């Protein structure tokens, strides 16, 4: 790949796309510098990390209870379209998909926002510490019932998913381990009437030492987390999940190397994340099917389309990826869902809306009107150009008199198979 293709790969796969002109800037900057700026923004002069919800004020509105949730979501979408720390947000999104905590269960906006901010700010920290914090995070305690799990009646929900989904993968633990973790993690409550604060109540906890994953004397959060994170399956499980998310179908050699690195670095996420991006720009990745959220944000950035938050959220919900509400504890579905008839139909309809909302002077609209297909593809962060079938379809599409020049063609380009694959 040349430099332009390398930085475009980073923007599509590890970022949120690019606005017109940005691909030129990044190409001039060079791949190494761009990658370092994404991996270590604080060391490279990037402006400080800011929460999407820094200015968000919670107001009780009994007349319209959904309005605040919608506002929180629109702040998130706006943030993703302008973030100066795109990889931090991409990893925050990866962890949201990994832990899959849903606002439909948590039902408290500030608690959900604190959870998402935790995932974003810790996104490149230490995985052991991330798990420790998530284990006693109010949103997780509510989501997987830790908040109602007591010594006399332990609830197994978190104890199971901690192992199956969050750290080890199935086959690396027994039903006895599920029960042992559940018992050792008892005692936490979420004080709903006191700002949803987390409190440890000793008489709700069963401190009986458990044997958990072969480790004796496990009896509380720290010993559970340490026993789980010391398990030899952790580096490979997390390396495989993160590598597939960003690199697609990669060889087991690549995953093994990443796992070794993750293990050698004491489960620090940043070095592994750097290695993943380096593998990507070195061409050690396969194409991926873009999920609805990155597809939408990338289209909005490239076109400058102005779209109401309600509409954006509706589009994402019908496409099957409402931020903050993964469908189940396994997170959002994968490529097959994004290729389904439902998502395809919505992608087509949404592309028309985006093209109609693209400003008059937008470079994408002008390139489409003037049949400059290579320029249009470059603006859509595909410097390699469109496939021939898409160029043929664009060229043959007439420009109806009732629309601005280029509008139908821009809609077609956004809906094309080329834009679904990154």
């Amino acid at each position, binding site marked *: 790949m040349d430099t332009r293709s390398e930085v475009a790969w980073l923007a599509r796969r590890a970022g949120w796309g690019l606005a017109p002109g940005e691909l030129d800037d990044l190409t001039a900057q060079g791949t190494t510098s761009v990658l370092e700026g994404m991996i270590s923004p604080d060391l490279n002069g990037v402006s400080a990390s800011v929460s999407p919800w820094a200015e968000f004020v919670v107001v009780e509105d009994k007349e319209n209870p959904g309005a605040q949730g919608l506002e929180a979501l629109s702040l998130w979408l706006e943030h993703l379209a302008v973030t100066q720390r795109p990889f931090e947000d991409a990893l925050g999104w990866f962890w949201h998909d990994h832990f899959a905590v849903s606002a439909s269960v948590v039902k408290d906006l500030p608690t959900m926002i604190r959870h998402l901010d935790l995932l974003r700010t810790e996104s490149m920290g230490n995985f052991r510490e991330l798990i420790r914090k998530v284990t006693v995070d109010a949103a997780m305690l509510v989501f997987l019932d830790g908040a109602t799990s007591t010594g006399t009646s332990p*609830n*197994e*929900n978190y104890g199971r998913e901690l192992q199956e989904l969050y750290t080890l993968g*199935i086959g690396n633990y027994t039903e006895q381990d599920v029960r042992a973790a559940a018992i050792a993690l008892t005692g936490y409550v979420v004080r709903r009437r006191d700002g949803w604060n987390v409190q440890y109540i000793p008489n709700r906890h069963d401190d009986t030492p458990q044997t958990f994953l072969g480790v004796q004397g496990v009896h509380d959060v720290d010993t559970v987390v340490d026993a789980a994170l010391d398990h030899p399956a952790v580096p490979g499980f997390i390396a495989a999940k993160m590598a597939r998310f960003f690199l697609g179908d990669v060889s087991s050699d690549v995953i093994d190397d990443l796992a070794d690195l993750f293990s050698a670095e004491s489960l620090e996420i940043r070095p592994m994340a750097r290695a993943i991006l380096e593998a990507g720009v070195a061409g050690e990745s396969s*194409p991926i099917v873009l999920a609805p959220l990155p597809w939408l944000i990338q289209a909005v950035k490239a076109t400058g389309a102005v779209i109401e938050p309600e509409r954006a959220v509706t589009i994402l919900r019908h496409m099957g990826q409402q931020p903050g509400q993964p469908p189940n504890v396994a997170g959002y579905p994968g490529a097959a869902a994004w290729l389904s*008839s439902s998502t395809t139909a919505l992608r087509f309809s949404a592309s028309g809306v985006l093209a109609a909302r693209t400003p008059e002077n937008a470079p994408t609209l002008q390139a489409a009107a003037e049949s400059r297909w290579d320029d249009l593809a470059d603006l859509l962060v595909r410097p390699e150009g469109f496939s021939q079938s898409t160029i043929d*379809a664009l060229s043959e599409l007439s420009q109806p008199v009732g629309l601005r020049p280029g509008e*139908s063609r821009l809609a077609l380009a956004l809906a094309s*198979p080329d834009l679904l694959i990154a």
Partner: protein
Amino acid sequence: MLSRRKFLGAAGGVAGATAVGGGAWAALIRDSVEESASTPTSTTARPATTTTSTTTQPPTTSLPVGNRVLVLVQMAGGNDGLNTLIPASGLYRDARPTLAIPESELVELGDTDFSLHPSLAPLSRWWNLGSLAAVDGVGIPLQSRSHFKSMDTWWSGVAEAVSTTGWLGRWLDATLTGDPDPLRAIALGGGAPALIGEQSLATVIRSPQAFQLQTTPGTDSEALIQAFLSTASPLNADPYLALAQQAIPTTVESVELLSQVFSDSSDDTSDAGRGPEVLFRSAARIIDLGLGTQVITIGLDGYDTHADQLSRQSNLLEDLSAGIAAFMEQIEVDGHADEVTLMTTSEFGRRVVENGSGGTDHGQGGVQFVMGPSVNGRAVHGDLDLTDLADGDVRTTVDERSIYAEVLDWLGGPTDDILDGAYERIGVLAA
């Protein structure tokens, strides 16, 4: 309006390549499933007892097999069987001090030892007509208490190895003639891995109301849709781009053909109640349209009731029974009742003993319902014995693949090839 033939013509170059695409599609779905070292073995299900309350036998339908439709309702999360089909047993009440359904609220099922959850009261009509049966203690040996591992076992019908195809996908493949038709199998409410075949295609409709190809005012809609189709052919050499291309003609065709289902104003669906009921009403309309659809799945979720189970399951079962009742009444009105078998599934039952959160944790044997003209109804099949638990769970007494086998027989088979074994038929459906 574009004709179906026109769309099929436009899709022609693509349909021929679906053998490759179907396999790659399956691989994409399966990419997160780890390898299993075990090898497939043919098994025969263990015998199961049948608790039959009556000898009522509805007449066996003589309808041509090809017109039959299976509706599979998937209750994701692991529905609590014990609070769905409630046993008249003191052990049940002992294990459920706060969750046991009060006796005064139970919906009695004839002279069986079971009652229905009060939210399922609308189903008693079909019980009394003899076209509803329940199966208790149902599961698949080697299924796990993990949602995802267990669902893998249920949708594939394969417990002993990793399968890339679903049990219904294999039936669609085995009975495929000509090019795959994506409308033979329709998944409402979300994707259904049970429909994954090597060659066959399925249409996924997450939200029926949003299943449209909309264009903005001033657009030449037909030209834009034709151009969208043009981006799909010829297929690109890049397999990923080819997958993205293949989704387009099947989508355009499905939207066109199904637009009647979701836009027909003669029977207003805009006030069709909560989400699930829209899916059930859509299923009834799809059947009435006569597009050759043979399998419809309806995806429902929320059954993972680790906490607050009483109110949550009550709402879920109320939605379920309202949806089923609306569906059954509609197919009766439309004259299709003798063509349709409906069955519910859920990936596992839940613990017998309630937890401290007002809920129940993951267990083993569960409950399912089967409805239709060939059902040996007014009966609870299978066996439930609360004095003989398996590690604190309801023991699996019926291999779900026995039920799959009976349904596949009803659809015309070849059942034992599809299930890779001759599972015992326990008589939930008339032979």
